[in-house]
Structure formats: C-alpha cells, structure tokens
C-alpha cells in the first residue's frame, strides 16, 4: 500500500510510523487510519522489525478524529452511525496495537487529543516531550469516550480522575501525565526523538520473544482473575522454556558472557 498520510521507515530493527498531516495536527482521516493499520500489519509480519515507534510530524502527535472529514461525510450522506464508524475505523486498530507481539513505543511530540490520546494509551511504552499534552476531548464535542479510552484510562489513573478528565475534557500536561503514570518518561522536547530511538534500539537488541510474552501476559492479566492469570503465565512459560533464547541465556549465564538473542 502506498502511504500518503503517514510515513513508514525501518532501520536497525526499529520501524517508525509517523502520522503525517502536520497542517491539521495529524488528525486521523479515514485514509490515515487505513494506512496506519496497514503499517502495523507490515511491521508485525516483518521479521526484521522488533520494535515499533509511533510519532507525529510537526507540532502535534495527533488531534484525533478528523472533524472536517466527518462534517463532509455528514453533508454527503446525512447522519452517520458513529458506532459503526468506530467498529470499522478505530476498534480494529486498537486491537491490532494490543495484540501485535512487538513493543510499540508512543513518542508523543505534542498534543494527543481524542482518538490520538487513545493511540498513546494503546501503546506499550510512552515517552513524551515536555510540550506534549493529552486531551480527552470527547465530551467537548458531545460524544461518548471511544477508541478504548474508557478502558485504558481508569486502569491507569483510577475512576474519579478518569471521569474528571472525561467530564472536563481539559488538557493534561506532560508533567501531570508523568505523575499519573500515563507516560513512562517526559524529556525535553528537542531530546524526544533521540530518547525514543535509543529506547527502541535497546529493546530491538533484547529478547524479543520474552517481550512478546510480557506484553501478552500483562494484557491478559488486565482482563482476567488471578487464577486465570497464573494459569496463563504457566502456559506462556511452557512455551518460553522451550525457546532457543532461553537456552542461550542460561548457557551465557553459566559461561559468564552476554547472551545473544535471536527471537527463536
């Protein structure tokens, strides 16, 4: 697929997806959503990719749903079923992000609003520029929270704070986001790209299979009971215990050297 509204590059095991409509703060058009989904699919199946970084071009990360496009749709076809739009446009992407076995790092370079905020929350690790802000803007346009934000937000910052944020729709600045655990780390704006790539490279050299198990186990545990989570861990461990990476790590430990992981 040809990309016009994102860019996709792969370098040294790191795939970088850049939302690329800077003139509209990377608002997510239908086309961008399709391209983003395609890039995720490509990165998931490319064995040369071990880590995915998602960022935005220009000043913002993403302003969320493209309201201009939405208005145009309404003019053309009348009232839209927004739920159907979600099912087709955003829900598959959120599930794709969570289910892809590779770590996804959101490198939040500016404002992340609405569904743009959701993309951050569906990422596994989040680095933010000190100029970043997070806006759960849904109520401000009279809409219900969507694209997973009602699921992710209370799991990060609790019930009351989530509803506080969703009611007011006010921006959460980078420092507050760090304090609330919405992001792993805030860095100076000019250091964001470097810090994101450094983190991505470090992960790309690590035991990618073990990372995929960790991602799956944590996602599973968020939605299941302790008994189920323990059983799931045991199942994954049966698989992990048979990998070459595990044997290599054990051998390296005994030989007192650094292990070389192959992702097998």
């Amino acid at each position: 697929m040809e990309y016009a509204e994102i860019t996709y590059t792969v370098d040294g095991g790191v795939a970088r997806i850049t939302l690329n409509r800077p003139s509209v703060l990377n608002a997510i058009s239908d086309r961008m959503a399709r391209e983003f989904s395609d890039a995720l699919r490509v990165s998931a199946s490319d064995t040369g990719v071990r880590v995915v970084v998602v960022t935005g071009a220009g000043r913002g990360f993403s302003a969320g749903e493209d309201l201009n496009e939405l208005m145009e749709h309404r003019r053309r076809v009348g009232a839209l079923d927004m739920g159907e739009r979600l099912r087709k446009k955003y829900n598959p992407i959120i599930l794709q992000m969570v289910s892809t076995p590779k770590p996804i790092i959101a490198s939040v370079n500016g404002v992340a609003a609405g569904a743009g905020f959701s993309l951050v929350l569906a990422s596994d690790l989040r680095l933010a520029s000190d100029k970043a802000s997070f806006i759960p803007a849904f109520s401000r346009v009279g809409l219900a929270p969507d694209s997973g934000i009602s699921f992710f937000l209370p799991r990060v910052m609790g019930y009351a704070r989530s509803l506080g944020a969703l009611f007011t729709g006010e921006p959460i600045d980078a420092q507050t986001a760090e304090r609330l655990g919405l992001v792993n780390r805030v860095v100076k704006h000019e250091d964001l790209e470097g810090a994101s790539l450094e983190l991505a490279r470090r992960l790309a050299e690590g035991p990618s299979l073990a990372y995929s198990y960790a991602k799956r186990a944590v996602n599973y545990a968020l939605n299941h009971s302790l008994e189920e989570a323990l059983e799931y861990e045991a199942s994954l461990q049966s698989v992990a215990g048979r990998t070459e990476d595990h044997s290599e790590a054990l051998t390296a430990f005994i030989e007192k050297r650094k292990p070389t992981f192959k992702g097998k």
Partner: protein
Amino acid sequence: MVEKRNRVGLITLNRPSVRNALSTQLMRELLAALESLAGDNEVGAVVITGGPKFFSAGADIKEMSEKTLVEAYLADMGRFWDAVGDYPKPLIAAVNGYAYGGGLEMVLACDIVVCSEDAKFGQPEINIGVFPGAGGTQRLPRIVGKYRAMEMILTGRPISAQEAYMLGLANRVVPAESVLDHALGIASEIASKSPIAVRLAKEAVKAAFNTTLDAGLLFEHRLFYMAFGSEDKVEGMAAFLEKREPKFKGR
C-alpha cells in the same frame, strides 16, 4: 496425519494450502484414522488439530459447488460427522485460528475443546446460499442455546475465542503456541483413567443430549452398575483404599 504420543492419538488435518478444507478425500482419511485409533487398545483418547494456523475453513466449496442434489444426497457427507459424533473414545479438538462451517461442526462433534486466543468460530454457510448441514443446526443450539445459535447461523458472523469460552463452546482459551500441549495434556490425563469407565461415561453424557431426564437417568444408572463388572472398578477402589495409584487394564 496420524501419530501416537503415549496413550493419545493425534490426528492433524493436513491440507494447509486450502486451509484444511474438508474434501471427501480428507474426511475419508480422517474417518480411517479415527477407526484405526478406535481399535487400538493403546489409545485412550484422540486429539484432532488443524496445525498451528487454522483448524479448518470448512467444506471444500469448490468440490461442493459442482454437486447436484442427487449427487449430494448420494454422497451424504453428513454421515461423516455422525461417525465423528458417535466415536467411542474421547475426542479433543485443539483449535488454532479459525474453525468455520464444517470445521466448526467437527469441533461440535468433539467432546472437549481447547482453543487459541485468536481462534474464531463461525457457521458462514448462509453467506453462500445454504446453511450448516453437518450437525451445526442441531449441535450448536444444544451447546450455546437457541438464540446465540440462531444469530451465528442466520448472520454467518463468527465469534471470538473469548465469546466461545463464555458461551461454553470452548473449555479453555490458551496462548496459540500451547494449544496442542493443553489438548494433549487433557487427553493423556483422560487416557490414564480406566478406558471402560471413560467410555461408559461418554456414552452417558451423550445420552443427556438425546433423551428425557427420566430415560437418561435410567440409562446412567444402568451404565453405572455395568462399571461394577469391570476389573478396573475393583482395582480403582482398592487403590483408593490402599492410598496408591491405580493400574487400569481396560478390563
């Protein structure tokens, strides 16, 4: 493909190029494999899998599209599944990926279902102008209930592993890589029991779907007393009282 591991038979549907579409040829081979394992006293349970990517996409539509009414009637593919449903030994379906149409009907004819997190179950026949004809309309509602079965069969929409689990269509949802392990684990656990008791128990449970409660209870009680005639019953109870592991011989 048929293998034996410990006391478990493992049958792998092996037409990956057509996503394990269930051709007449495949069904014949499957039945032959089941039959040989049925007669093998060393086998206590059988696992059916489609391999790591998909269980089965369902009937071979190319083959079916060329069939007339008379040909379909004479070939009577449905009886293949009846044979699966009547199988005397426990059948465990190990489902990775999707089980659609005839693939799901095969799952429904099994006794225990283990599936991967990304498994999908569906009866999409309605989309090609027919409907499930290999047990789906009868077995599915008995498992998931009338309304859910109607929705699946009339819309053709597949359900996820998690939904299948909640509906009782899957015993366990496990990571994709360990589906076969789990299925083999359950199978070998069953294979360690008295084969006579296992067979009687399966017959009794199956009767629950086929008869009134009174007749079913009567059937159960009769089979239960039958179990008392086995050496395995004597050994099992003796071992329990002597606090040791039983050694079942299938007699």
